[in-house]
């Protein structure tokens, strides 16, 4: 049953500074609400003290620098899709956004919320991992920036410390002529939670892979890079037998489960087929 509003408090702070003080005191951030309000409806929203961070301008905006782009934590999927430069430099992120929910969710849902919510099935993390993003966390005592690959540490376990929130996500431009691959497999094209989601980035020089990242969602307790597979491919020439070896090793990186959305067997097959598909495009 739905939660009762009066059991909760929701404060709208005037500044980031005020928000961070409240968060330091134990309050929990509310951004677009597309995850939290669902919990509220289900009666399972455990955080009683909430801070409405949605209006904070310090957490908004898309800023390009020479070799990177910084996306404020409050950047919505719609804002990603409306930014032509983001779409052209980061097609996998754009695909994640385009395939997240439907329009109404894309208008409200934020990148920071998607990352912090840390669902193993979330659609943006694989793209962010494949682009080797960095994440900046902020608290009343200052900012710190860490590689995004170190952010997800276990099921719903992240590197966010008490008193911290996500300020921004920074993506370096991929090298010229990088190949990318993004695939979301769900029950229907829109508004479906992923059964499998994958993102890959490869760069070839002199016929050899000198960069290869393969990131997955819904295939492990948290979004992750497939290090075994990457290691096998890195530095090598893509060929039929190497593809076979890489695909055979995928099982060392992922541990898909049976749940209401799909089965472990199906997920394993789809994950393998996606990897094979990408690598065959590189032949």
């Amino acid at each position, binding site marked *: 049953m739905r939660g009762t*509003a009066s059991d*909760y408090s*929701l404060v709208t702070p005037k500044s980031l500074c005020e928000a961070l003080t409240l968060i330091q005191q134990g309050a929990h951030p509310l951004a*677009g*609400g597309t995850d939290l309000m669902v919990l509220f409806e289900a009666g399972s929203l455990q955080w009683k003290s909430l801070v*409405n961070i949605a209006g904070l301008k310090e957490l908004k905006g898309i800023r390009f620098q020479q070799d990177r782009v910084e996306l404020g934590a409050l950047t919505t999927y719609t804002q990603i899709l409306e930014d032509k430069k983001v779409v052209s430099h980061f097609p996998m992120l754009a695909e994640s956004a385009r395939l997240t929910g439907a*329009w109404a969710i894309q208008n409200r849902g934020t990148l920071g919320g998607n990352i912090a919510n840390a669902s193993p099935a979330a659609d943006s993390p694989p793209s962010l991992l494949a682009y080797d993003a960095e994440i900046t966390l902020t608290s009343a005592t200052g900012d710190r920036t860490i590689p995004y690959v170190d952010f997800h540490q276990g099921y719903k376990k992240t590197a966010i410390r008490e008193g911290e929130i996500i300020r921004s996500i920074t993506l370096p431009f991929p090298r010229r002529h990088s190949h990318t691959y993004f695939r979301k497999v769900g029950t229907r094209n*829109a508004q479906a939670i992923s059964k499998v989601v994958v993102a890959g980035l490869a760069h070839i020089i002199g016929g050899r892979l000198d960069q290869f990242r393969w990131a997955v969602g819904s295939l492990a307790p948290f979004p992750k890079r497939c290090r075994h597979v990457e290691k096998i491919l890195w530095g090598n020439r893509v060929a039929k037998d190497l593809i076979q070896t890489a695909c055979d090793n995928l099982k060392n990186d992922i541990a898909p489960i049976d749940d209401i959305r799909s089965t472990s067997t199906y997920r394993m097959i789809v994950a393998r087929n996606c990897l094979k598909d990408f690598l065959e495009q590189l032949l």
Partner: protein
Amino acid sequence: MKPTFKLKINGKAFAVQAHPLERLLDVLREQCGLSGTKEGCGEGECGACSVLLNGELVNSCLVPIAQAAGAAVLTVEGLASKSLSALQKSFLEHGGAQCGICTPGMLIAASALLKTSRRPNEKKVREALAGNLCRCTGYQNIVESVVGAHKESR
């Protein structure tokens, strides 16, 4: 005491007293007498509660009233005027409504689309309405209603 939130709904100024976490959906239906906006799922899946918030399509079941403070809201009631709009006429002509529960949300989602794309094709319409579920029509008539809406406006 509950705080007061000011917002403009269908062009009219409202001041409502509500807990900040109360859903925009409930404020519209229970305090503003605007029961055109429906509740289907209450969790963002069905689109029956669709409204435009500062011109953007949102699910009002997922918006706490504190996040609508000072905003302009358009509900299905705001689409009506003395005469039927082109979109409404097209829904009538194509049989776009059966039981009608999804219809307010469909009309709002369609008007969000028609604001940016005056003559959307079927693919575009299906994409724009992807977050709106209908258990009656099988969608075809709804899609045809929206695709056909521009013809009515001539």
